[in-house]
């Protein structure tokens, strides 16, 4: 290419982005002896990382033999889902498990840890440099471009996350549309670990994952979340962007502010101070967001960039799925290398391994949840009906009404048929 500086040094694999996907791929490949470079636009590994707050452990245990040293804050032993008809009241479902399968952590720390694993295995991580495009030779991706510099490699892994500037620049995907993504806005509120334990009734190392629906998102499809970390709380709101354009009348930061100051949460969040304010996009309609293929000649696409994120309605699984997809991309490269062939055909074992893995299986299982989420009822009608039911049951000065009557009356008040409600309920249960 003209005006380009081609670096003398060539790598076996170049990876775009040091997130969970890119670093897990790097770790696997470096361990297998591949000369691996990861290019990260941030100042340090993890400095651009932000998510909600909890990570499912199993896939990471499979990838990282020394998973035990991962910087866990608390193991999630309690789950709570609350419907907030307004900021003063909520209806909650509590679940207390025996075995914890997920943990809370700062993604900044987890990603930094993954960076250390990858580097110890022999990977080279280059920070401070954004990749601007892929480098192609004979139509095959053969490296990456940053500004005027070209780093050549036999194969490239794209792990750039949801803002896919490189995939866009190379023409593989179109720019994102509001209906494909959600916006998450979050505050981290700090205190002492004892304070967190007392406020939430947790024992040491025990964590709570709490989801809010209804008023917390201005009745916009999405959800709000609260995760307890060691000595802090992650509090945030997620809204589907296309719906938010119409629904969010005030400023979007007001949603988190309202949640933090909500009377219903007052007892939990006293005397905590804000220590970070962050925001990021989340793949939402993951099937439409997914690139046509996840492998091209010399290229594999992983993590959020590939739309490999699960939105289960009450929880996101992005970090472990991204990491797992990176790991499988590593395996696919190992196999392709043995054949001496990095064409799309040879790399397509990545797609088939994904298909059989927990990632695609779970994504398919939850496919319908997205439909339920999108119809908006869950966020607007239901909280109102539920709150009407509860008010009738618990705030009736003539004494409590029967649940069935209360539901019936509340449905009428909200102009919704009980039959429809039942059908919705059935559909939702089926989709879960």
């Amino acid at each position, binding site marked *: 290419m003209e005006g380009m*500086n081609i*670096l003398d*040094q060539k790598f076996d694999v170049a990876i775009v982005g040091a997130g969970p996907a890119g670093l897990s791929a790097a770790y696997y490949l470096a361990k297998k002896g591949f000369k691996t*470079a990861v*290019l990260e636009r941030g*100042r*340090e590994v993890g*400095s651009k990382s932000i998510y909600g707050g909890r990570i499912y452990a199993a896939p990471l245990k499979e990838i990282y033999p020394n998973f035990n040293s991962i910087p866990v804050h608390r193991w999630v032993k309690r789950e709570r889902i609350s419907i907030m008809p307004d900021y003063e009241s909520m209806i909650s479902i509590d679940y207390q498990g025996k075995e914890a399968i997920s943990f809370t952590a700062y993604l900044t720390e987890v990603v930094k840890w993954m960076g250390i694993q990858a580097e110890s295995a022999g990977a*080279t*991580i*280059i*920070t*401070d*440099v954004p990749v601007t495009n892929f480098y192609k030779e004979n139509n095959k991706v053969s490296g990456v471009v*940053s*500004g*005027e*510099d070209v*780093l050549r490699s036999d194969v490239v892994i794209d792990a750039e996350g949801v803002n896919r500037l490189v995939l866009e620049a190379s023409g593989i995907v179109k720019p994102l549309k509001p209906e494909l993504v959600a916006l998450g806005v979050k505050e981290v509120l700090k205190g002492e670990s004892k304070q967190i334990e007392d406020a939430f009734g947790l024992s040491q190392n025990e964590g709570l994952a709490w989801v809010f629906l209804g008023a917390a998102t201005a009745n916009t499809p999405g959800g709000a979340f609260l995760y307890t970390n060691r000595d802090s709380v992650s509090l945030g709101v997620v809204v589907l962007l296309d719906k938010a354009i119409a629904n969010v009348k005030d400023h979007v930061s007001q949603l988190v502010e309202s949640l933090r100051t909500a009377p219903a949460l007052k007892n939990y969040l006293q005397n905590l*101070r*804000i*220590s970070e304010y962050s925001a990021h996009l989340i793949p939402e309609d993951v099937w439409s967001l997914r690139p046509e293929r996840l492998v091209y000649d010399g290229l594999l696409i992983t993590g959020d960039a590939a739309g490999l994120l699960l939105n289960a309605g009450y929880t996101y699984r992005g970090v472990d799925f991204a990491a797992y997809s990176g790991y499988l991309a590593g395996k696919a490269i190992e196999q392709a290398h043995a054949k001496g062939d990095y064409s799309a055909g040879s790399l397509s074992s990545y797609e088939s391994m994904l298909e059989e893995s927990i990632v695609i299986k779970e994504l398919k299982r939850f496919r319908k949840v997205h439909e339920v989420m999108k119809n908006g009822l869950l966020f607007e009608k239901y909280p109102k009906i539920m709150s009407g039911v509860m008010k009738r049951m618990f705030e009736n000065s003539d004494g409590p009404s029967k649940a069935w009557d209360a539901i019936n009356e509340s449905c009428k008040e909200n102009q919704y048929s009980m039959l429809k409600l039942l059908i919705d309920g059935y559909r939702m249960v089926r989709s879960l």
Partner: protein
Amino acid sequence: MGLEIILLFKYVPNTTTVNVDPNTGTLIREGVPSVVNPHDLVAAEFALRLKEKYGGRIRAMIMAPPSATKGIEYLVGMGVDEGILLTDRAYGGADTLATSYVISQAIKKVVDHYDLIVAGQETLDSSTAHIGAQVSSWLGIPYVYYVTEAELQDGHMILTRQLETYVEKYRVKLPALISVLMHTLQPRDVTLKNKMKAVTQKPVKVYTNNELQLNTLCTGLKGSPTIVAKTEFIGKIPRKMQVIQGKTPEEMVSWLISKLKEEKVI
């Protein structure tokens, strides 16, 4: 031949954005990452342009704990050739006198030849602007500060020095030390090629007092006559946000001036 340049820099906590607890108005220092002192990035850019024009080599020197290696990597990422890290427990807790002593002695001991030392105007975290002056006096070489331009002419340097209302020109013998006026230039970006070199080749020489053999009575805390009697946090001044009114730039300016007068700022 070209110019042999020593670039002095400091790796400082990034306080360009001051972190204040919105509730209590107190400063938050937790987990604040360090950056190359922004004014030293300007000095680096200045040195890089000299190198582009006259050839030669730039070595970035710092007295600091080993974590400053990251700062060297950043500068090499911009195009600086090598780094020299002066680090020893005996150098910790230094004031400007002890710092400039170590730097100047190291230059004497481990730098075989240099033409020019380039420093920033001052640092973000202490801003004494002492180091340049002190290093030059230890070394007995000319010192010009607030420099905005430099040109080589028959073995001398013609320096432009920018003062508030006028400009001075100097002709100095080399070797000399200059400190570059802040905001004079826009520092260039890190490139993939240079950062790759920084990370894979690690062109950093580390010297401890084993190599430098300085009298530790003159370094670190022991060599520092400065005593900080007290530091006081100046309370939070509540901010008022107002959007400038007016249709034309002229209207906006007069609106702004009237507001500033109202607030007795001017």
